[in-house]
């Protein structure tokens, strides 16, 4: 039996629904010795800002139960260096490249970024990172406010026909409202979820394990939270959801589809098993065959329960 793993998000066609999440895969070159990158459904780049960013001081990571905290602080070489040094390698892979972008200066910088990226063929889609918890000094995230989310997505939507994916934060009261705001503003898809805010303390020294004190929690520890948010958003919106948060193997990937995701992203698990993404691609195919499901679409939101 042949199964169909291809999915569509906006105008973006993916041969399979498995991507790698922003910030966990570098600019892909780091992983070329481990897997055939061409097998991936798509690659989401580490977030790029207009200007280079140094990021946060070390220590930037620490392990926590079934997960890890990070406070990298969006370190990146800036748009110019990305286009010159990183994009050519990605472009040659011939698979969709989703460029994650963030702004240090509200809507203005987003608009400047989109202006410069709109005509670039090598960039297949844009992921709007309005949910990074690690920018020191910021009081709140764009994605913690429905109106701010709506307005930024709307202003970018007006500027480009490229597929737009909005990455949302789980650090909110009602994810459904934020998801709806992004959909109403014209987002083609949603990436759910970014990391959860957290901290960890060294009790001997009585100091925080991260120099920035707080960071973003990822890994299997956050999977139940992520799943619930995908499910809630799925019940409120019609655009496709890219589910992520603690996926480490095929069963955990399947959970997200059943909860309502159309595609999934592998994040922190790339650090532990650099081959996990391609293992999951074949695992999904195997599951569909075994369950005699012809198309991965039929799995999305297929949760069976009595309400």
């Amino acid at each position, binding site marked *: 039996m042949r199964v169909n793993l291809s999915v569509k998000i906006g105008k973006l066609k993916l041969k399979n629904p498995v991507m790698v999440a922003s*910030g*966990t*895969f*570098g600019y892909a070159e*780091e*992983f070329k*010795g*481990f897997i055939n990158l061409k097998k991936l459904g798509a690659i989401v780049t*580490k977030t790029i800002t207009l200007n280079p960013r*140094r*990021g946060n001081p*070390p*220590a*930037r*990571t*620490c*392990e*926590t*139960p*079934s*997960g*890890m905290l*990070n406070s*990298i602080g969006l*370190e990146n070489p800036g748009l110019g260096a990305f286009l010159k040094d990183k994009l050519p390698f990605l472009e040659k892979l011939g698979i969709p490249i989703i460029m994650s972008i963030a702004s240090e200066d509200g809507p203005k910088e987003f608009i400047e970024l989109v202006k410069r990226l709109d005509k670039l063929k090598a960039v297949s889609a844009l992921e709007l990172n309005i949910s990074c918890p690690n920018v020191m000094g910021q009081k709140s995230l764009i994605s913690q406010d429905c109106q701010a989310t709506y307005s930024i997505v709307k202003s970018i939507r007006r500027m480009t026909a490229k597929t737009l994916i909005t990455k949302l934060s789980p650090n909110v009261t009602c994810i459904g409202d934020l998801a709806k705001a992004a959909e109403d503003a014209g987002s083609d898809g949603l990436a759910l979820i970014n990391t959860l805010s957290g901290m960890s303390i060294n009790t001997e020294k009585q100091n925080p394990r991260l120099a920035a004190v707080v960071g973003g929690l990822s*890994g*299997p520890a956050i999977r139940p939270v992520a799943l619930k948010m995908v499910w809630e958003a799925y019940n409120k919106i019609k655009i496709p959801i890219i589910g992520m948060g603690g996926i480490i193997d095929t069963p955990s990937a399947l959970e997200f589809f059943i909860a309502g995701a159309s595609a999934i992203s592998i994040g*922190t698990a*790339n*650090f*532990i*098993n*650099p*081959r996990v993404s391609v293992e999951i691609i074949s695992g999904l195919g195997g599951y569909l065959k075994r369950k005699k499901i012809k198309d991965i679409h039929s799995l999305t939101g297929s949760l069976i329960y009595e309400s």
Partner: protein
Amino acid sequence: MLQIKARIISNKWFKGNCWHCIVSAPSLGRASKPGQFLNVKISEGLKPFLRRPFSIHNISGGKLEILYDVVGEGTRVFSGKKSGNYLDLIGPLGKGFDYRGTRGKRVILIAGGIGVAPLLFLSKEIKSRDKLVLIGARTRDQVLCEKEFQNSGSGVMISTDDGSLGFSGRVTDLLKNIISTGKKGRGAIQLYACGPGPMLKEVCNIAMANNLQAQVSLEEHMGCGIGACLGCVVKTKNGLKRVCKEGPVFDAKELIW
């Protein structure tokens, strides 16, 4: 760079808090250079969750050795592994020591505690006839690898913080003594060091003050170990650098402490 499942040949208590693991990994061994490291998936479960980086301690006949202190949950689980178990290894990773051109030089290796781990492999590869290893530890029961360094053709001097063996005081004070009493005009001295942060900082200071070449191997918490997550950065004169990729070995002149 390889990712392999390596069979544990032995994993035994070594001394003090320190354990010694030997795995069968011929392909990895052939590819490895002193100062490079392995990123080890210790458990198949989630405890510990991330891989743990370990220096390559020694390589002989297809066998690869890891020397490690049991300091936390990851290394505690590691110490419970038995011969016949497997470890998922990624390596060799990072940039190791540069020891080209050491043949005619005086070479001093400075190890603090478990910092001996990468230096034994280095000592075996350095062809200089004038090799000296300074092994520093808190107390005599924690002095590691004295015999192994001697067998590698190095002279060995020991320092303990409590004076229970060898020089009484810090290994960096021993280093200062050796440099200041060294014969004038004896030629260049090259330093290599691995150990706790404050010790390495002091080695760098000594090197700068005496105009000596020094390379130090740093340790940082790592997310991925392959340069993707930007978690393990340190401050250098050329901006932040990744310990896992541009390091773990850095030139003393480059680092900002």
